[in-house]
C-alpha cells in the first residue's frame, strides 16, 4: 500500500501516517511473499508417495520368517513405485531402525525392476540405510525369508545367510510385521500368499503366528480369509 503522495513533506502527524503506511506495505509484501512460497510448494511439490499395507504382526519376538509367494504372473497394473512383500522388525519411537527382507517389483521408469526381486533393506536407529538385491524370484514360486536374532540380527533367504548386522538396532524382544505393501497407486494389483508365517520365541523355538494383529482394512487392500494367523492371502484392489 502506497503512502499517499499528497502527505509527503507535510506536518509531523502526516509523517507518522507515512511511516504507518510504509510498515503496512512491508507487512503486505511479506504476506504476499509467504503466500507465493506456499502456493509454489503446493504446485511444485510431488504428492507424497502413499503406501497401503495388508498382513499380520506379532509382538515381542526374537525373529520372524515366512514363505512369501509370487503371484502366477506379473501383477498388472503395477505403476509408480510398485509393490513389495516382506518380513520386518517394526520401528518405534525410541528405535526408528528396522531390518527387512522380501521381494519387490517396480516395473516402471525410472527403476525398471521388471521381475520379482529378493532384497534386504536395513535402517539403523541413526538413519543410515543399506539396500541389497539378490537375483530374482520367478512368478508362481516361493522363497523363505527369515530375520533371526542370534545376539545380533541375521537375514536369510531360502536358508542362505545374506547378512548379519549389529550395533545400532533395537534388541529383542521386538515387534515384527509380515506385510504386503503397495506404493504410489491403489490401482496396483496385489495377490500375494504368505505361508508358514512364524516367530521365534524367547526360548529359541519357531512357532506359527498366533496373535490377531491383522492389518486388513487399508482400503482397497485386505486379507482374503483370516482363518489362520500364519497363512493368508493379501489381495486388492477390491
Amino acid at each position, binding site marked *: 500500500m502506497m503512502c499517499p503522495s499528497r502527505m509527503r513533506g507535510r506536518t509531523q502527524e502526516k509523517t507518522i501516517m507515512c511511516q504507518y503506511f510504509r510498515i503496512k506495505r512491508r507487512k503486505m509484501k511479506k504476506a504476499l511473499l509467504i503466500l507465493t512460497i506456499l502456493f509454489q510448494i503446493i504446485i511444485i511439490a510431488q504428492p507424497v508417495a502413499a503406501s497401503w499395507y495388508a498382513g499380520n504382526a506379532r509382538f515381542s519376538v526374537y525373529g520372524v520368517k515366512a514363505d512369501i509367494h509370487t503371484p502366477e504372473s506379473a501383477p498388472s497394473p503395477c505403476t509408480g513405485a*510398485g509393490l513389495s512383500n516382506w518380513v520386518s522388525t517394526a520401528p518405534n519411537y525410541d528405535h526408528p531402525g528396522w531390518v527387512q527382507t522380501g521381494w519387490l517389483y517396480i516395473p516402471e521408469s525410472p527403476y525398471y525392476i521388471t521381475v520379482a526381486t529378493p532384497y534386504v533393506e536395513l535402517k539403523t536407529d541413526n538413519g*543410515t540405510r543399506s539396500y541389497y538385491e539378490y537375483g530374482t524370484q520367478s512368478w508362481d514360486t516361493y522363497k523363505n525369508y527369515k530375520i533371526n536374532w542370534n545376539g545380533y540380527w541375521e537375514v536369510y533367504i531360502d536358508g542362505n545367510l545374506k547378512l548379519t548386522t549389529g550395533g545400532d538396532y533395537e534388541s529383542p524382544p521386538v515387534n515384527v510385521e509380515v*506385510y504386503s505393501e503397495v506404493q504410489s497407486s491403489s490401482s496396483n494389483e496385489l495377490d500375494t500368499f504368505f505361508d508358514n508365517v512364524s516367530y521365534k520365541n524367547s526360548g529359541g523355538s519357531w512357532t506359527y503366528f498366533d496373535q490377531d494383529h491383522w492389518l486388513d482394512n487399508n482400503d482397497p487392500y485386505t486379507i482374503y480369509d483370516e482363518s489362520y494367523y500364519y497363512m493368508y492371502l493379501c489381495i486388492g484392489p477390491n
Partner: protein
Amino acid sequence: MKAIRSLLITLIVALLVFGSIVYVNNKSKVSGATLFVPETDSTEKDIIQQEIIDELMLNLKEQGVLIKSIEIVSDDRWAPPVVIDCVLQSSTESGKTSPEDPIYHMLVERAVNLAQTQGLIVGATGITFVDSDGNVFSWIISAVKEIENINLEFKQGEVGNDTVATLIRQDLSLNGMILDNLEVVSDNNNFRWVKLDISVPDIEIANVGIKSFMDNFKAILTNLITKENAEVAVSQIRLTTTQGHPLLTYVDDLQMRTTFWWQTDGLIEDWLPYPAPIEINN
C-alpha cells in the same frame, strides 16, 4: 583260445597305462614340468590371497577410505567360509554414522566383490565402523555377490565421459537446487562413475525437489543406456546446504545392485520407493 587272447590284451593295456604313469611322474620330478595342474598348497594360496588383500587395501586408501585394518577371517557361516574383515575409521565423534561412511561402505564392498575376479576366495565382507575414540558403533557382514551374478560387461558406449557429463547436465532437473559439481570418470577397471555435488540454500527446497530430482536423475542414467549404450556403474550424490552442512549422501552401485545412504534429520524420507515397515503399538 579267445579267452587267453583277451587276457593277454588286457595285460598289455594295463602294462602300457602303468608305464605311462611312471614315466610322467618321473619326468615331472626331473624337469619340474607339470603335465597336470597341481593343487596349490594352502601356504601358496594364503600368500596369493594376502597379495590381493594388500592391493585392495592400497586402492581403497588411495580412494580416501580410512582403513584401520583388513584381515582374512575364517567363518563357516559363509560359503566359502572366509570373511574379509575390514575396520573403518569414521569421522564421527558422536557414535552416529558420519555422512561419508556410506561411501566408504560401498567402496569396500565393491572392491571385495570385484577382487573375486582376480582370484580372491571369499564368502562375505565384514565392515566395522569405529568412532574417533575407537569404539565400535556399527557393523555389518554381507554375503559377497556371486561372481557369476556380477555384470562385468558394463558398456562404456561410443561416447566419452565429457559427452556423458554434457548429456546429464542438459537433462538434469534441479528443481531449485544448485549443481555445484558434476564429475564423470572411469575407474581402473574402465567402469564409469557419475558424481554429483548439489546444494540448497534451505533444506525445505530439498524437501520439495529431491524426489523428482532423483527420479529424473535415474531416468537420465537409463536413457544413457538405451540411447547412447553408455552404462554407469556407480552414481554418487552429495547434497549439502550452501553453507556446506551435509543433508544427504547417496551411493548407488548399479553394477552390484546395492545402495547405501545417509540423510540428515529433517530431510523427507519417502523420496525412494523402497518399502518401509509401519510403527505398531503393543
